[in-house]
């Protein structure tokens, strides 16, 4: 479980996150939604330690991440897998080397165990026979799947996904959503996903946190979201006229 308590973040005196308190459950896909510039990426960067929260605390299963020493954080980070918006695959490495990289740097497994793990991860994301390809030779969806394979290489307890569907067509988005959801349930990970894609919300949003202007505005599940009595959330959910008309007819 990841717990956020009274987190504030400022940039140049401007408040970007205001008193965020929420928790993300293990074995569930926890979505953070909000429009661009609402602060959801900043919150995720605070969670993974790329930004320091100016106030407040972040707990990973009762371990206080905010006050950990550098060394403790280093070990803590090995329990995290992160899927970045663009995949963030290392251009100079093949698919195999990309997935192997965290294993080489951070695990004590033997070479054959590492190879087996790479094969397993690639198989898990339905990408066989791509070992020797470079990221530039992959499609957008394949890149995301390789990035997921790399994120799960060390068998993390916590998986963070920043806009996993950005730049993907609806069908591929669905494949990625389902894959993340399957992995989450299979390994009982605490998965936190940043998104503004309502298709993802409806498909895999077991818990949903809506952030608006740096504040946590609403929390619930995808089952409650369409009936929520919250103006800002409704404006976000029904921003698309087509969706609005479709849901009104239903």
């Amino acid at each position, binding site marked *: 479980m990841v717990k956020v308590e009274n987190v504030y973040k400022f*940039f*140049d005196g401007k408040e970007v996150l205001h008193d965020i308190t929420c928790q993300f459950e293990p074995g569930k896909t926890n979505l953070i939604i909000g429009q661009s510039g609402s602060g959801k990426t900043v919150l995720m960067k605070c969670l*993974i*330690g*790329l*930004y*320091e929260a100016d106030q407040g605390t972040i707990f990973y299963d009762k371990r206080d991440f905010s006050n950990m020493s*550098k060394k403790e*954080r*280093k*070990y*803590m*980070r*090995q329990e*995290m897998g*992160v899927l*970045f*918006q*663009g995949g*963030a*695959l*290392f*251009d100079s490495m093949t698919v195999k080397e990309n997935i192997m*990289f*965290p294993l*080489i*740097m*951070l695990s004590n497994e033997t070479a054959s165990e590492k190879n087996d793990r790479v094969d397993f991860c690639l198989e898990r994301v339905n990408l066989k026979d791509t070992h020797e390809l470079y990221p530039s030779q992959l499609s957008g969806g394949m890149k995301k799947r390789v990035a997921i394979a790399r994120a799960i290489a060390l068998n993390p307890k916590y998986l*963070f996904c920043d806009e996993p569907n950005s730049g993907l067509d609806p069908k591929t988005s669905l494949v990625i959503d389902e894959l993340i959801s399957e992995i989450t349930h299979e390994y009982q990970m605490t998965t936190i996903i940043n998104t503004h894609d309502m298709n993802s919300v409806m498909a895999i949003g077991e818990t949903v946190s809506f952030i608006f202007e740096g504040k946590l505005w609403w929390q619930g599940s995808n089952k409650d979201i369409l009936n929520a009595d919250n103006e800002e959330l409704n404006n976000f959910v029904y921003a698309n006229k087509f969706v609005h008309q479709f849901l009104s007819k239903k």
Partner: protein
Amino acid sequence: MNIFSIVNNGEKTEKAVHLNIVERILHDIGDYLLLMKRFFSKPENGPYFRKQLVDEINGLCIDSLLIVSIISIFMGAVITIQTNLQIENPLLPTWTIGFVVRQSIVLEFAPTIISVFLAGKIGSRIASEIGTMKVTEQVDALETMGINSASHLILPKIVACTFINPLLIIIGIFLGLLGGWGACEFLGTIPSSQYIEGIRSWFLARDIYYAIFKTLTFAFVIASVSGYWGYITKGGALEVGKTSTKAVVNSSFMILLLDLLLTELFLG
């Protein structure tokens, strides 16, 4: 409004401040020193570091061998012809030209001019490589894995450059002198026997040590300054281009400044 990034322990914050040119320079130096503290740390994985080192030696330095050789040969020949044209004094023996050419090549041309050239070739490569990794979140990916990204990306480049650039410069000295001999032998600038006598006259090993010391200093500057500019890149492709240019300009300027200081310190 100038936007600077502060690099400290993996935390990247932005400070939008109004600074004058002196404050900007001091700010950049401060950032550079903070980053230096981060990249001088023990590599995460020894065998992987050695692999990176071999790749960097190959990519950054060995790839420069051909162009350094060509420049050295031609510059050696041109310096010989120019020196011969400038020293037309019947009181000076002809072999003086060989001596002047050797001193020019060993003391200045090979260590300084080739280093300035390498600042362009290697520096832009380092800055654009790291800058692209930065804007495509590859550096963030390293940080989230618990890896010191500054050390992982910049340290192998610094070690590779300080290890191999002196070798490149020694090759440059040899080929420069060979180029001068070629000008004498094939263009008839001066008799080649006189040239050889000149390059053998009053030879001091200290000059070679001085050239190597300068090269080591310049190699460190090229890799670390370019690494710094690459590491603080923010934005997209346009910013990667801008920081690459800044890396080349700043490392070239630093090389020339240090050349002046070292020459005054050791030979002045």
